[in-house]
């Protein structure tokens, strides 16, 4: 999960940088071309202006020194006769295609590549007559070097940006994933039967909510388990004594065939009655150990269910119907009931169809809450065993929670799928 989030963030940064850098790179190339062209043109124009008098008079021209301003690029300037001879300056001995085009005087400026140079030529005219051509040129390698250097700078920045996004992704991933991993570890410990497992708080509301739910579940199931363990330890001890008595009575009767068997049978039944009373007492004791609960605020709970149900169902175009049929008051932990109903609602949203109906009713001094949807017939499938869909786990946990509260959760009808949560009513 860490790698996935980090990779995703870095990829997003990379794509954004590329989308931005590619047109910019092209713009840089275009800009340098235009810049160099402008420089060459200025140099050629300045020279042409200076030498035009000499050329028009038929004198040998000399290349004037150029101002810094006109020669930022540092190209070389040459002057050619209309027939293509090199008159002065640095350049090829014979005029190239660019100079010949300029010599025709059909254009003001001619631009093109000559060998490894970018050449620009302007004609020097006297009336209709072309008296010479001024050529300014810059080696292509110079231009290329400048563009590549700029591109390298941009690439460097892109690498830095990506690196930064990687660092940031790693930091925030750690903040997000560490609590999730701790939560998963706590859940795993819970699954292994360690009900003292508690998940640490991360400071992220959504994750903490899950953690709290997990903790209260663990506490509840742990509490029940502890109670059951104590009960079975006590029970086996307490039951052994009357059982031994019963056994001895029967064995003694068997060894004395002369005695009245009916007396032994009656004594045996009396012992069985004692045994039964012991079981009743133990069961009563087990019930007493359950911590007393406040009365359940069913209305508040159903209102909450309505809100979360509407939020889940409305976007799917489905509805939630809550019906109250004289539900009796119950004395159970609201947190446990909330979670069980949450699991049932989630199950109806994910696996069910149509309207979800919640009915709170009286099942004979017992509060029953039915959650039904209009999904297909479940037939003989046991939704509590459907671990493959990942759904059974939630339902199984919900069932344990219901039982920890002294209640029961079961599929009461496969068609339409109806789950019923039964909770002990307040005495």
């Amino acid at each position, binding site marked *: 999960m860490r790698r996935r989030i980090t990779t995703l963030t870095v990829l997003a940064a990379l794509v954004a940088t590329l989308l931005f850098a590619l047109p910019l790179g092209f713009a840089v190339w275009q800009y340098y071309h235009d810049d160099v062209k402008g420089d060459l043109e200025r140099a050629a124009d300045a020279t042409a202006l200076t030498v035009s008098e000499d050329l028009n008079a038929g004198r040998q021209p000399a290349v004037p020194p150029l101002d810094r301003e006109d020669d930022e690029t540092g190209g070389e300037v040459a002057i050619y006769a209309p027939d293509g001879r090199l008159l002065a300056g640095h350049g090829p001995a014979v005029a190239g295609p660019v100079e010949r085009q300029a010599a025709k005087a059909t254009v003001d400026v001619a631009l093109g590549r000559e060998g490894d140079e970018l050449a620009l030529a302007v004609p020097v005219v006297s009336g209709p007559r072309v008296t010479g051509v001024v050529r300014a040129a810059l080696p292509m390698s110079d231009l290329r070097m400048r563009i590549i250097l700029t591109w390298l700078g941009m690439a460097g920045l892109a690498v830095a940006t990506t690196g930064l996004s990687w660092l940031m992704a790693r930091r925030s991933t750690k903040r997000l994933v560490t609590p999730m991993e701790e939560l998963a570890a706590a859940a795993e410990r819970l699954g292994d039967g360690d009900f003292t497992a508690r998940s640490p708080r991360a400071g992220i509301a959504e994750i903490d909510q899950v953690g709290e739910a997990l903790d209260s579940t663990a506490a509840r199931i742990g509490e029940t388990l502890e109670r059951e363990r104590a009960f079975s330890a006590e029970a086996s001890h307490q039951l052994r004594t009357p059982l031994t008595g019963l056994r001895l009575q029967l064995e003694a009767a068997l060894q004395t065939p002369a005695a009245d068997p009916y007396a032994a049978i009656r004594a045996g039944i009396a012992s069985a009655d004692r045994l039964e009373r012991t079981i009743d007492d133990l*069961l009563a004791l087990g019930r007493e150990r359950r911590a007393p609960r406040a009365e359940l605020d069913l209305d508040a709970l159903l209102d909450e269910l309505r809100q979360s149900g509407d939020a889940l169902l409305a976007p799917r175009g489905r509805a939630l119907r809550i019906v109250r049929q*004289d539900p009796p008051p119950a004395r159970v932990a609201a947190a446990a009931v909330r979670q069980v109903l949450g699991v049932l609602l989630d199950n109806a949203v994910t696996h069910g169809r149509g309207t979800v109906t919640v009915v709170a009713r*009286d099942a*004979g*001094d017992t509060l029953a809450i039915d959650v039904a949807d209009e999904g297909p017939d479940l037939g003989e499938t046991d939704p509590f065993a459907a671990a493959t869909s990942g759904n059974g786990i939630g339902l199984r946990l919900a069932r344990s929670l219901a039982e920890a509260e002294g209640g029961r959760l*079961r599929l009461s009808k496969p068609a339409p799928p109806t789950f019923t949560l039964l909770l002990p009513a307040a005495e």
Partner: protein
Amino acid sequence: MPNLLVVEDDAAIGSVLESTLRLHGYQVCWRRDGRSALQAAEAGEFDLVLLDLGLPDLDGVEVCRRLRTALPATVLVILTARQEEMDVVVGLDAGADDYLTKPIRLGELLARVRAHLRRGAPAGARPPVTVGGLTVDIAGRRATLGGREVVLRAKEFDLLARLAEQPGIAVSRETLMSEVWDAHWYGSTKTLDVHIAAVRRKLASAAGPGDEVPRIATLRGHGYRLEDPTRTLAEG
């Protein structure tokens, strides 16, 4: 001869139940697991089913629910070792009519079976009783609310008829248990609570707008009382 289906996986208990019930003049079909019990229920007609909830192959409450679907008119009595009241309520909510907790006393079992198979008291020519919009025709074993029939199971009808005999008067749990179920047994009477809940639910769902629906009031620790809505209004 009444036909009984016994579903019990324990060989010792099963054989005792089978022989004792035969001895008392019932025809008995004994099945040891849920699947074969369901097959038997589909093949034959039974007057009463004794169903143990702890079965080796299927969940007992699930078997109870399916038996109720397969045999809508049969009396379903569950046997359970789980004495937790909640398990009993789950079974009754799944369609059982009554329950017995293990260890079972044979005398009590036989009394319950007899009580369930005795379909209502001999009616004679008693006139129908009217409470508000509710009319209970004891001779015809029909209850109507505002002219519409309220569909009740046998014991639900007996219970409503008993309460309707004395509207406005509290009837104790003991009286109801002994007169409707023939049970002189004052332990946990979840059966009564579940049947009252069912009758209340059926009355409420059968009621139309404007019907004077009689209410069954719970008197904690004592019993129940059927209240005539018209009389309450007149007094108030």
